[in-house]
C-alpha cells in the first residue's frame, strides 16, 4: 500500500507524490488550469527533481490508461454497458473550487444534475459510496454516473458552484 502525500502549492495547484520502494520519490503536479506534470526525484537528493515532464490532459490520460489506474471506471462502464444513455466519468475537483473543503451534500449534485457520485478517488485511494457529509478536497476525483448532459452540468457545478 503506497502512502500518497498531497501537498497544496498555493497559486499553482497540488502536488501528489509518494516514495518508491527504491527510495525515490515519484508523483504528479496538477496545475489549476488542468495541466499536469510528472515528477521524479533525484537519486542523491530526494528533495529535488531529476525530471519534471509537462503532460497535456490527453497525454496524462493516456499514461494513466497505460498504467491501469482507471480500472474502477473501466469496471463500472462494463456494468453499465447494457444501459443506453448512462455514462461513467471521472470529474476532478480542482483546488480552489467553491466546494474545495466542503461536503458532497453541499453540491446538491443529485437534485441539480441527476448525477450520482459512486466513489471519490483521493490520493490513489478509492472511497466508495461517499455519504453526503463526505468532505471533499482539491485534487479529488469524483467517479460519477449520469446522462452525458447531466455529467457536463455536474462538471460545471463542481468548477463554479
Amino acid at each position, binding site marked *: 500500500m503506497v502512502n500518497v502525500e498531497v*501537498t497544496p*502549492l498555493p497559486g*499553482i495547484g497540488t502536488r501528489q507524490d509518494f516514495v518508491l520502494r527504491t527510495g525515490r520519490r515519484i508523483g504528479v503536479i496538477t496545475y489549476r488550469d488542468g495541466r499536469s506534470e510528472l515528477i521524479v526525484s533525484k537519486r542523491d*537528493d530526494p*528533495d*529535488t*527533481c531529476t525530471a519534471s515532464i509537462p503532460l497535456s490532459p490527453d497525454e496524462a490520460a493516456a499514461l494513466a490508461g497505460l498504467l491501469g489506474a482507471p480500472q474502477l471506471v473501466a469496471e463500472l462502464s462494463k456494468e453499465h454497458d447494457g444501459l443506453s444513455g448512462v455514462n461513467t466519468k471521472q470529474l476532478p475537483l480542482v483546488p480552489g473550487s467553491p466546494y474545495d473543503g466542503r461536503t458532497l451534500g453541499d453540491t446538491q449534485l443529485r437534485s441539480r444534475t441527476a448525477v450520482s457520485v459512486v466513489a471519490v478517488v483521493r490520493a490513489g485511494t478509492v472511497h466508495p459510496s461517499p455519504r453526503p457529509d463526505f468532505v471533499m478536497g482539491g485534487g479529488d476525483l469524483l467517479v460519477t454516473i449520469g446522462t452525458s448532459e447531466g455529467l457536463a452540468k455536474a462538471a460545471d457545478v463542481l468548477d463554479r458552484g
Partner: protein
Amino acid sequence: MHNSAIALIELGAIFFGLGVLGRMAWKIGISPIPFYLLGGLAFGSGGILPLEGIEGFASLASEIGVILLLLLLGLEYSAAELVTGLRRSWLAGLLDLVLNAAPGAIVALMLGWGVIGALAMAGVTYISSSGIVAKVLSDLGQLGNRETPVILSILVFEDLAMAVYLPILTGVLAGATLLGGLTTIGISLAVVTLVLVLALRFGRYVSAIVDSKSPEVFLLRVLGAALLVAGVAQQLQVSAAVGAFLLGIAISGSTAENATRMLEPLRDLFAAIFFVVFGLNTNPAEIPPVLGVALLLALVTTVTKLITGWWAAKWQGIGRMGRARTGAALVARGEFSIVIAGLAVSANVVDAQLAALAAAYVLIMAVFGPLAARGAEPVMRLAATRFRRTATA
C-alpha cells in the same frame, strides 16, 4: 507634426523598445523589470532624452499598472490558500518579516528619513517578488521539489502582510498621527479579516458579479470592477492598490483563474508603463550617491533572505541543499518594492532620494535574485567538496 502623432510615435517607440529589452532579459534568465526601470531613467528628467506630451496618459496608465499588479496578486491565491498558508507558515513568515524589514528601516533611519521613510524602506526590502520567484521556480523545474511549498507559503504570508501593510503605509503617508495610525491598523485588520471571511463564505457571489461566458464581457466587468473598487478606496483614503488587492482575494475559484489568464497581458503592459514612469520620475543623477548604500542593503538583505529560507526549510525537515535553494529563491525583489516606493514618493512626504535608493536596490536585486536561485546548487556543491577535502586532509 500633429501633437497626437508625436505622442503615438513616442509611445510606440517606448513599447517597442521595452519589448526588445524584455525579450533580451528573459533570454539571459533575468527579470525585465530592471530594464524597464533603466529605460525610464534614460528618458526621464535629467536623462538623455526627456519625453514630452504623454505625461498625462503615462501617469494614469502607471496607476492602472499598480492596480492590476495588486489585483493579480490578490487573484493568485484563493482565500482558503491564504488561511491555510497563514496557519502553516506564520513562524517562518514572522522571521522573514523581522529579518528583512529591519535592514531597510535601519538604513532609512540612519539616512535621516524619519519614521515614515523607515516604514516605506522596510516594505521595500521585506517583500520578495512573487512574479520573479514563480517564474524562476518553473524555469528551473523546481516546482516538484520538496522545499517548494515552503517557498510558496512564505510568499503567501508576505501577500497577507501586504494587505495589512499597505493601508498602514497609506494612512501614515496621508499624515496620520500615532493614534490615527493605530486606528488605521485596526480598521485595515478588520477589513482584511472581513474580506477573507466574505471570500471564504460568499466568494462565489462576488465571482458571479463579474463572471460571464463571453470573454469580452468578462474582461470589461473584471477591469471595470477593479477600477471602481480602486477608485472608491482611493476616495476613502485607503489606497487604490489595497482596494484592488482585496477585490482580487474576494474573487475565487474558476472565475479567478479566468480573470488571471485574461488580465495577465494587460497587467504586463500597464506594469511596464508603471516601471518606466517610476524611472522617469527618478533623477538618474541621484543614484550614484546612494549606490553604495543600495549595494550594502542588497548584500545584507540577500543574507537575511538566505537565513529565512534556510530556517523555514529546516523546520520542514528539508535537506541542506533544499534549504539553500529555499533561501536563494526568495532573494529576488521587484515589482512590489517599486509599488511601495512609488506610493511613498508620490505622497511627497519622504526624502526624494528614497526613489533613487529603491530604484538602485531593485535594479540590483531583480538581476541578482534569479542568478542566486540558479547559483545556489553549484555553490553548495562546491562548498561540500571543499569541506570534504579539508575534512580528509
